[in-house]
């Protein structure tokens, strides 16, 4: 009669969910293995001493405090951009401007820190708010252009982000630059505005733990609150959400803005935690890699943690390989881009799920990313 009654279908279908999960996990594993395998192949083909290069690539991050701390720290800003993109994708919003949102957030936050009237850690909070607002504003703008004019956020978010990056560079070089720095960077933030290093000599700092907390908060927001429920239903079926009385247009814009706000937070924590000042090109593709992280996490906020750590590991491994062998740190980008290629491939999932685990055809779970396809957005309109 009610749910969970041990009727016939129950016993037959109980393993379905487990099988779906298993297939998801395996297809993720296959994706990562193929990408890392390709990276290994590149090292083999290009390195004079592949053995040593691979050793420093795979083991380097664990060789001492410096690299281990840097690995964790590399993951920290990606926790934020990844979480932001989880929120956007969950609501069906394709935010491709996170890179620009990172820069504009970093600009706004740094301006607060450079011109702070008092040198108190409270100003760091103000800077974080400024960064979030700035990033959120330009992301929200792309969302609004979609709901108001039907201009697809897929392209507009990118264009706005590109404009933002130029704006960042202009303001940095024209108004904030410290001529003594020797390259486009501001003077250092006051010591009160930098996060304490927790694992010296590495740059590991509290931002990693703030990121972990943010992951839990986003998890609670998405899965425990009415607002999060509305966001997810809007992304899953916009018409159903309308039928249930949800303000789908507003939710779309808010989801975009939130994801931009997280990009802004990533920036200010990276700047105050690692660099201690604003500088040109400070983001190692935080926005773009955030998309990969969100997808590896299967759009789950807690999944963002291992996904960001995977990136941190690859990134730091590539750095140690670059330092101690004849491999470029760029090898990490190649591996990440290959993961990016394969992460949404339904054929891999279907092959494992139906070809290997079971020969019957069943509905895949709803957590796989199902973004709108080639429509230009004029139809769904928010």
């Amino acid at each position, binding site marked *: 009669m009610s*749910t969970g009654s041990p009727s016939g279908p129950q016993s037959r279908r109980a393993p379905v969910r487990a099988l779906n999960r298993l297939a998801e996990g395996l297809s993720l594993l296959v994706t990562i293995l193929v990408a890392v395998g390709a990276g290994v192949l590149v090292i083999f083909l290009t390195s004079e001493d592949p053995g040593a290069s691979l050793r420093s690539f795979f083991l380097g991050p664990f060789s001492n405090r410096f690299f281990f701390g840097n690995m964790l720290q590399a993951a920290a800003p990606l926790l934020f951009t990844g979480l932001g993109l989880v929120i956007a994708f969950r609501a069906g919003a394709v935010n491709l401007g996170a890179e620009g949102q990172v820069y504009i957030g970093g600009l706004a936050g740094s301006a607060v820190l450079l011109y702070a009237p008092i040198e108190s850690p409270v100003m760091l909070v103000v800077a974080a708010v400024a960064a979030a607002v700035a990033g959120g504003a330009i992301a929200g703008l792309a969302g609004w252009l979609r709901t108001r004019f039907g201009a697809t956020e897929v392209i507009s978010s990118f264009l706005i982000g590109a404009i933002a990056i130029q704006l960042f560079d202009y303001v940095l070089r024209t108004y904030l630059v410290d001529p003594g720095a020797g390259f486009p960077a501001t003077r250092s933030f006051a010591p009160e505005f930098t996060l304490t290093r927790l694992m010296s000599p590495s740059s590991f700092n509290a931002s990693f733990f703030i990121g972990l907390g943010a992951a839990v908060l986003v998890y609670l927001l998405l899965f425990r609150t*009415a607002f999060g429920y509305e966001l997810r239903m809007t992304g899953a*079926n916009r018409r159903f959400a309308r*039928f249930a009385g949800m303000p789908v247009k507003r939710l779309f814009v808010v989801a975009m803005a939130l994801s931009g706000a997280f990009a802004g937070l990533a920036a200010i924590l990276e700047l105050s935690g690692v660099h201690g000042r604003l500088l040109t090109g400070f983001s190692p593709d935080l926005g773009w890699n955030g998309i990969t992280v969100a997808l590896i996490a299967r759009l789950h906020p807690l999944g963002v943690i291992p996904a960001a750590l995977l990136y941190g590991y690859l990134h730091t491994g590539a750095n140690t390989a670059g330092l101690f062998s004849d491999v470029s740190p760029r090898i990490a980008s190649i591996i990440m881009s290959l993961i990016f290629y394969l992460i949404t491939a339904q054929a891999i999932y279907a092959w494992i799920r139906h070809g290997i685990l079971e020969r019957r055809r069943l*509905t895949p779970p*709803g957590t796989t990313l199902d973004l709108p396809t080639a429509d230009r957005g004029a139809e769904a309109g928010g």
Partner: protein
Amino acid sequence: MSDYLRITGLNKSYDGDVKALEDVSLVVAKGRVHAIIGENGAGKSTIAKVLAGMVPFDAGEISFERRDYRPSSPRDAAERGIGIVHQHFMLFPSLTVAENIVLGSEPGHPLKFDSDRAVQEVRDLSERYGMPFDPTRRLGDLSVGEQQRVEILKALRRDVELLILDEPTAVLTPQEVERLFKGIRRLIGEGYTVIVIAHKLEEVLEIADDITVLRRGRVVATRRCEDTTKQELVRLMVGDDLSPKGHTYGTAGEPVLTIDDITLGTQTGLRALDGINLTVNAGEIVGVAGVEGNGQFELEQVLGGLQPVSSGAIWLSGVDITHRSARTRANMGLAYIPGDRLVWGCAPTESVFNNAISRDYHAESRFGVLRKGALRQQLKEAFARFDVRTPGQWLPVSNLSGGNIQKLILGRELHGRPHKAIVVAMPTRGIDIRGVEFIHDLLRRYRDDGCAVLLISTDLDEIISLSDRIAILYDGAVVAVVEGGGKPTKEELGAYMLHGSTMQPAASGLGSPGAVPPGARA
């Protein structure tokens, strides 16, 4: 000659579960119009799809021109000489008529499309078959009837000999139907054979030579047109077993849901709803009958608060709700069960739990935090009361059967809140018999509790067996309101539905107390 197309013992089931066709055998003679009729879901379209090479069949044999016929694709079917005109056209609005017709086997070569030759070819074709139009026009600018003729020419150009028309009149005006029939007769005169899939009996009797009746995937009978009557065909189509069990009336009270002259315009300037007036009283079920596409969808959307009206007003117990949101209407006591379950009623990829709480999550949250325990408790009660069977709350709702999804939606919208009125559209479409009975009983219970129920359905049996009064929707307007319970009969209602007026002789029987209840017809 009688062996032109022979189907023997054909079986077809979808997804290994639902049997769409069961041991179907029939013979189509060359040079004749063979109609295949039956109610929605009787399996007519499946036969058409099998013959057109769109779906494979499971068991049985088909021979065409005395050779085994088992098409692998529509193209394969066309090469053997069988073509199909779909109810939903496979055409490209942005291309010209000529381009649409020649697409797939165009004159010219890969780097040259010989447009002049295509135009000339189409001109010749259209003259030969008496379907004249300008081949250079954009297809999107053509009327529906003209587009259908394009589809027919497209099939004829591929040298098919047997043409299948799937519900060809469903979207046509009476004038266009006449024109279509003329075209069909002309084709027969040229030696073609035509299979018409249909459910409008008058039209079938007018055009067909032979008629095969399907019911629930089985062939009930094949008749020559001159040997049968409308009454017999209805009896064959409906079957005695499907007659509604004892119809009960409600006791109508105060007016609850009042629809006051509402109109809804569409982008093309047409009126999807045209001045609808209707009142539903407490304790009665008012059925809205009509052929699909006459404004049912727009009516439910407008009443549910998903589309604003162009003019007019909607009242709920004396309160004007015309400009109230969907959620406000629900909170005021107007429940709405949408007709398209999977598009509007749920998010198929989301879990059962997420789909079940969409009405209550708002009220059942404190400071924005969902009270999952309370929601789960309510869900448990609702599922028990509405007999929702689910293998697990966390599985995607798409794993449930259609009946269980519908019961989930009913439970979600109806459980735990007082209702003044219920607007319910197509509540049992695609649902098995037991589910249908459950849902029908449920609606009667709500009626008996004093709820005003507006039932929008294209299933005439459902309308007749449930309604106290029946409004007939035709071309976006209510053309008549008659008594329910089988007086007027199904055929008489059909006359309204098909013609939108009382010009049919059947009108004489309307509302007369002596009319035969549907169960007693034979």
